């Protein structure tokens, strides 16, 4: 679980970095592209307007010629794709190859829908005309090309920067990941190396009990309790570390028998604290569960119930068809602390040792099998843990 937790936080920071990095680059690129597009568009239209202006000059020249020669046939100069018309001083239509519905007179050149219009003042007034209006269809092709290029640019740049960002992010996270991995490896190695000495201690205590009538019984019990605690700590650590890739063997487990076994395992601890134990287990209760999961859950519950009990306190273990109840006369948990307590590394009472991973493991097992887990507690009085299935 540690590994996955770290990977999740890694992922989170990677995504955060990517989010900020990408959104800011995208904003920048988008703005730059918009400005570029606007500028280019303006230029294209200006060029077309210039053309229109040149055309107007040409038409004016022809009109002048027409005016001066007084030819019998007045031929108005048509110049496709340009259209033109002449207006008198009062801005009334005289003649032309087109008749625009309305004109904006206070602008020299402007664009109306897809038409470019240019109004050219004439001096002197040829044929009584004082304005020449030239119009042409706006050439959309360069504008469309510009638009396509801009979009393409955004897409390609976006793609490039996303890839770059991803690569950079990975690069930043690499040392973090490496140190995480080496830490995990370290924990793994340590726990593995702990294994053999713990085995040696426990087996030798067992051996001494079996072979000799040892005089230092009390001292032996203390060593036994300490090494059992060490052993459980080891089991819990390995469990958390391996949880995600551990192959469970779900089988029908004799839960009653398992509970008796585990209570037996804790009896030295219970006796050492002079706790009054009351066991009331229904016969032959079975659960479909991985045996190790069941042991870790029960061990942690019992261990907590003993650890957070007072000397000469009570411990009640009750098992029925649908629930396991462990009640102790412990120091109790404050109401506001109950909801925090299930999180790893959080302990109700800081003065006691331990890693506080116990209830987290219980929580994980309970969640995996869809059990229901409740803690009832009265501060300084008692705590009751209830697991229902």
């Amino acid at each position, binding site marked *: 679980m540690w590994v996955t937790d770290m990977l999740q936080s890694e992922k989170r920071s990677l995504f955060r970095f990517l989010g900020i990095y990408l959104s800011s680059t995208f904003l920048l690129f988008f703005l730059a592209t918009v400005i570029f597009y606007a500028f280019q568009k303006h230029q294209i239209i200006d060029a077309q307007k210039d053309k229109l202006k040149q055309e107007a000059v040409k038409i004016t020249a022809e009109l002048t010629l027409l005016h001066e020669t007084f030819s019998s046939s007045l031929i108005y100069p048509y110049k496709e794709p340009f259209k033109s018309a002449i207006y008198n001083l009062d801005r009334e239509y005289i003649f032309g190859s087109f008749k625009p519905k309305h004109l904006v007179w206070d602008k020299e050149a402007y664009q109306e829908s897809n038409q470019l219009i240019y109004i050219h003042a004439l001096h002197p007034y040829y044929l009584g005309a004082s304005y020449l209006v030239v119009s042409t269809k706006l050439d959309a092709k360069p504008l469309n090309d510009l638009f396509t290029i801009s979009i393409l640019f955004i897409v390609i740049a976006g793609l490039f920067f996303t890839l770059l960002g991803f690569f950079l992010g990975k690069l930043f996270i690499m040392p973090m990941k490496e140190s995480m991995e080496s830490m995990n490896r370290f924990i793994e190695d340590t726990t593995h190396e702990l294994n*053999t000495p713990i*085995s040696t201690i426990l*087996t030798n205590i067992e051996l001494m009990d*079996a072979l000799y009538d040892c005089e230092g019984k009390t001292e032996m019990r203390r060593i036994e309790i300490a090494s059992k605690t060490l*052993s459980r700590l080891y089991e819990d650590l390995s469990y958390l570390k391996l949880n995600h890739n551990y192959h469970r063997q779900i089988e029908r487990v004799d839960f009653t028998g398992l509970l008796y076994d585990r209570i037996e395992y804790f009896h030295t601890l219970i006796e050492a604290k002079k706790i009054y134990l009351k066991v009331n287990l229904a016969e032959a209760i079975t659960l479909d569960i991985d045996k*190790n999961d069941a042991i870790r859950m029960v061990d942690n519950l019992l261990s907590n119930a003993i650890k957070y009990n007072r000397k000469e306190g009570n411990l009640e273990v009750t098992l029925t068809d649908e629930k396991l109840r462990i009640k102790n006369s412990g120091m109790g948990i404050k109401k506001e602390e109950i909801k925090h307590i299930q999180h790893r590394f959080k302990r109700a009472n800081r003065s006691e040792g331990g890693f506080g991973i116990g209830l987290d493991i219980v929580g994980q097992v309970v969640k995996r099998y869809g059990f229901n887990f409740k803690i009832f507690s009265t501060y300084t009085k008692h705590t009751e843990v209830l697991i229902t299935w």
Partner: protein
Amino acid sequence: MAQQNILLLEDDIQLNDTVKQFLSYSGYKVYSAYDAFQAKDILYERSIDLMLLDVKVPHQNGFDFLAGVRNEGDITPAIFITSLNAVDDVTKGFDIGCDDYIRKPFALKELLARVELVLKRNFKTHSYQIDLDNGYLFDVKGLFLTHNKLKVSLKTKEAKLLALFLKNSRELLTYEKIFDVLWEYDETPSQGSLRAYINTLRHILGKNKIETVKYVGYRYVAE
């Protein structure tokens, strides 16, 4: 007293000594090996009834060791001693051909229970005593014979031979195989002694139970 032989492969000297002491106390003859090569030597020299194998040992890990042993056709039962870290490998262990596994840290009681269980399987029986008719019972844990609950005095080799017959009921046992099991590698097997042991066993079990296969060996017939 006839004892079953256990090969213990565990590189930690303290733990090896502890387990050896405990199993010896429980009535087994334990041969300790601290690396895979030593284990292989012991397996060649001794007639081993059960292997207890740690996975992380020098030269070759326990899995590879067992795979090599199984490849040579040796079906001596094996129990792996692993840590939880290697639980996933257990499937691998079973594939290779181990009979059981025990997780470190373990209780000696649990180890003993598993050892007894696997050793019992050698005799293809569910109980720890095999009924040999006429009030004779053979105890598979301690390799001794009782007649109407009284222990029958047997020579060590006679008890071993009987155990060998019971394990290989209805199968032909060649002289070679019997010599391998009954005589240690530094002893010289003797055909004459073997005949004497066979006679003793025939006297106890009834003549027809042990068939002679001329020039080859013997066969134990249950009925």
